[in-house]
């Protein structure tokens, strides 16, 4: 007997949810921290709420707090956002085939492509009898809802308690270190990881903290392009 659409969806949800549990923990913690962080700078909870709903990108949301506190400079905000999120270009390139769905489904998968959602939907062991499209959609939707609800909670919670947030931004740094370490532990070759660390560190020293991202990216792409043979194993999982 054919499954109904509803049964197919429920089956996919049951397969997707367990895989998002670590992200539930990570996102709720980080997004509450984000809401509290914005609140500490005097922003109403609507700010973290709408920013999480519309931007849905952790790093740039933290950085954007700086944009909002500084002088009005929309061009700079756009340029820095493009730089910080440039890695999504590469996630998109990796998902070109998997995320091709017409209409709202394809749109939401691409819209909701975060580091963590990307990593689950890229490498997941999706059971044979589960619809891949629904599975990826639920992973994306669940992670998105964790992030948005945490931001709202943090934004509201921050109004109620006195909390010394100095150093809280390190949650973001810790997240990147953990994701980097996870990649390192899983990958076949460390060349690309080392390239990213090394080139960025060198550019940071040469160009300074305000200007190093673009030169870093250009040099990384250049080296990956001219030394293709040495990076052939890059990105492969053990």
């Amino acid at each position, binding site marked *: 007997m054919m499954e109904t659409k509803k049964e197919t969806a429920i089956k996919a949800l049951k397969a997707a949810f367990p895989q998002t549990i670590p992200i539930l923990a*990570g996102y709720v913690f980080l997004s509450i921290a984000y809401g509290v962080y914005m609140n500490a700078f005097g922003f109403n909870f609507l700010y973290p709420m709408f920013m999480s709903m519309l931007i849905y990108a952790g790093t740039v949301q933290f950085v954007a707090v700086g944009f*909002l506190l500084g002088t009005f400079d929309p061009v700079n905000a756009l340029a820095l956002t493009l730089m910080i999120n440039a*890695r999504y*270009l590469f996630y*998109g390139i990796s998902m070109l085939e998997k995320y091709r769905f017409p209409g709202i489904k394809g749109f939401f998968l691409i819209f909701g492509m975060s580091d963590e959602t990307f990593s689950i939907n890229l490498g997941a062991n999706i059971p044979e009898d589960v619809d891949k499209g629904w599975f990826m959609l639920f992973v994306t939707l669940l992670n998105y809802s964790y992030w948005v609800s945490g931001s709202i909670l943090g934004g509201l919670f921050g109004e109620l308690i006195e909390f010394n947030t100095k*150093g809280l931004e390190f949650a973001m740094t810790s997240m*990147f270190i*953990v994701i980097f370490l996870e990649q390192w532990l899983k990958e076949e070759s460390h060349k690309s990881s080392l390239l990213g660390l090394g080139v960025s560190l060198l550019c940071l020293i040469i160009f300074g903290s305000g200007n190093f991202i673009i030169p870093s990216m250009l040099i990384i792409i250049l080296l990956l392009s001219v030394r293709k043979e040495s990076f052939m194993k890059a990105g492969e999982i053990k």
Partner: protein
Amino acid sequence: MTMTVGEHIITIAMVVLGTMITRFLPFILFPANKPTPKYIQYLGRALPPASLGLLVVYALKDVNILTGSRGIPELIAVVVVLAVHLWKRQMLLSIAAGTVIYMVLVQMVF
């Protein structure tokens, strides 16, 4: 000087626009009906680890080893994150441990 709410909205709209460009551009440039160039496929595989390395450096970019606390709280917190993660391999725990240690260090020690 503080910005007006209108300026806030424009600034946030720019961040939304920038983020959506980076997410949607590959799908617009390489549509379904054409094969993706081999070079782009190669980059799609080779770039993610390097991007994560870049992000780690990015997150620590404002640490100054010459002045103030000389990056000691950051160094300790990074070691804690790595150690806890290698020990338990639980993302939340590693992030929480690093953040709490860092907050204690910058609020009470340094």
